[in-house]
């Protein structure tokens, strides 16, 4: 369990690093484009590249954000429940989230397959679109593993509580 948990956490951190690099890439690319545009030499396809990098920024940051409790939730009700019930609900919602992200991951992968088969490319740079769908599919899969780890940790906490 610890080994699995550590591996998932490490993967989430690696994705987060990638996400940060993509964010820095968007800033550098856009600022360079603005400067070069003033000199009448804009970078062709900036719009498309920023869209692609955006998918990496947001998609890859989801698992670590979940580990850091970065998503908003309504907890003022559950905070009033007895500790045992509260932990049970936490395990239940983590598992529900895990199933949701497994479904998202699978469907995004299929959507990527469709894009690849149809040969969908961006307008200017002719960049294939399917790797973006695959990228978000992979990050969704990692997200579901993160939620599984959190559920298992909460369950362990529940047993130790009992």
């Amino acid at each position, binding site marked *: 369990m610890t080994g699995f948990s550590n591996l998932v956490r490490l993967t989430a951190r690696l994705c*987060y690093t990638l*996400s*940060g690099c993509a*964010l*820095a890439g*968007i*800033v550098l690319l*856009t*600022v360079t*484009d*603005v400067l070069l545009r003033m000199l009448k030499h804009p970078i062709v396809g900036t*719009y*498309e590249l*920023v*869209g*692609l*990098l*955006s*998918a990496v*920024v*947001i*998609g890859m*940051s*989801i698992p*670590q*954000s*979940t580990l*850091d409790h*970065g*998503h*908003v*939730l*309504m*907890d*003022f*009700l*559950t905070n009033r429940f007895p500790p045992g019930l509260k932990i049970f*609900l*936490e395990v*239940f*919602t983590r598992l*529900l*989230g895990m199933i*949701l992200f497994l*479904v*998202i991951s699978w*469907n*995004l992968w*299929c*959507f990527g397959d469709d894009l690849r088969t149809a040969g969908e490319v961006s307008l200017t740079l002719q960049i294939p679109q399917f790797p*973006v*769908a695959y990228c*978000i599919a992979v990050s*969704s899969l990692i997200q579901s593993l993160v939620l599984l780890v959190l559920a298992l940790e909460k369950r362990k906490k529940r047993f130790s509580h009992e």
Partner: protein
Amino acid sequence: MSELAMLGLILTFLFVLFSLGLEIGFAMALAGFLGFGIVVNWDAAFNLLAKDIFSVFSSYGLTVIPLFVLMGQLGANGGVARDLYNAAYKFIGHVPGGLAIGTVGAATAFKAICGSSPATAATFASIAVPEMDRYGYDKRLSCGTVATVGTLGILIPPSVVLIVYGILTETSIGKLFLAGIIPGFIMAGSFVVTLVVWTRINPKIGPAGERSSWSERFKSLPPIFWVLFIFLIVVGGLMEGLFTPTEAGSVGSFGVLILTLIKKEMTFPRLIKAIKDTLRISCMVLTLIAGATVLGHFFLITRTPYYVATWLEGLAVPHLVIMLIIIAIYLIGGSFIEHLAFLILTTPIFLPVVVKMGYDPIWFGIIVSVVTMIGVIIPPMALNAFVVSGVTGVHRSVIYRGIYPFLIGMTICLFLYLLFPQLSLWLPYHFMR
């Protein structure tokens, strides 16, 4: 099953998910997916889920959110807020309640580069509260002030709430930014008036600080000019059509980074922290938008905006009363879910009604922002009070008692903006045609 019964069932399911503690963005996606599957068919629902998430995450337009958040986080981690507070303190610290008034001034200036309300509250809680403690300020006054001034970023550009509203409603972000300036300054003025009146009534809660010399005051001014310079480039570039909002966010972030590097305030660990904070906040907002997009498609096929519009029109009351009902729904709903999430969820439903009544969507954006400002400081989902409590260790009940006096001015401002739309609309329609 009729459309309305299905809608009621899915909304009940959604609120059960919220109450159980599932993340709001995930809950919206799940409810929208299940509703779409039941009403249309499961193949379409699986397709919708993948396409909506793909289009939100890879959208060029939505990159504006992480970029403006980055600009604010770089400023917050790079010592810009401290310099602004220092300047405001030098000018006004010697009058009763002056440190708190200085906090309002510094936060207003800081808002020109930081659009995140909790980030500002956290930054000023760590800078201004210890200083006010040193002069024996009452905790209600110091903590209430920093929690409240944090909300200014919801109205003063580059506000994340205005950006999200602009994206949701396909309204010009440049116009929304300009529309927020006058109401933002009036709101800051109401905070100052509240502080002056409060310290007049009870001078012990905010004793006067030390008087600074004029040379010290002038030496503290340059950071204000630099912040103003970056603000003018960002908003001016947007107004003149030189930048897209995404480019404006990038240029602003780059400008703040250069400023903090020149000042030698930005170290590598601080830069990493700014990027991490940006990713966390942006991921939270974009996940909410993705979830709301899926749920929004379910609302569309069940004709929810039509039913809401029919219900509101059927009330046969003046338009202003309908607006007050909408505001009450935002305040009450946002108090239980989370204000940004509630805004993302309901704005596409209410906007058609508002536009049909003849109101301007830009003006509605400002009204929604002011309601959000009030929402983030009133319980039970008073995000800013949570943040200030977390940073200062002061109990939330004390912070709430410090927030309540400001609510009087904020409510008066809300009615002013409701009754006089020109306060919001004059700048955007005068400078951007």
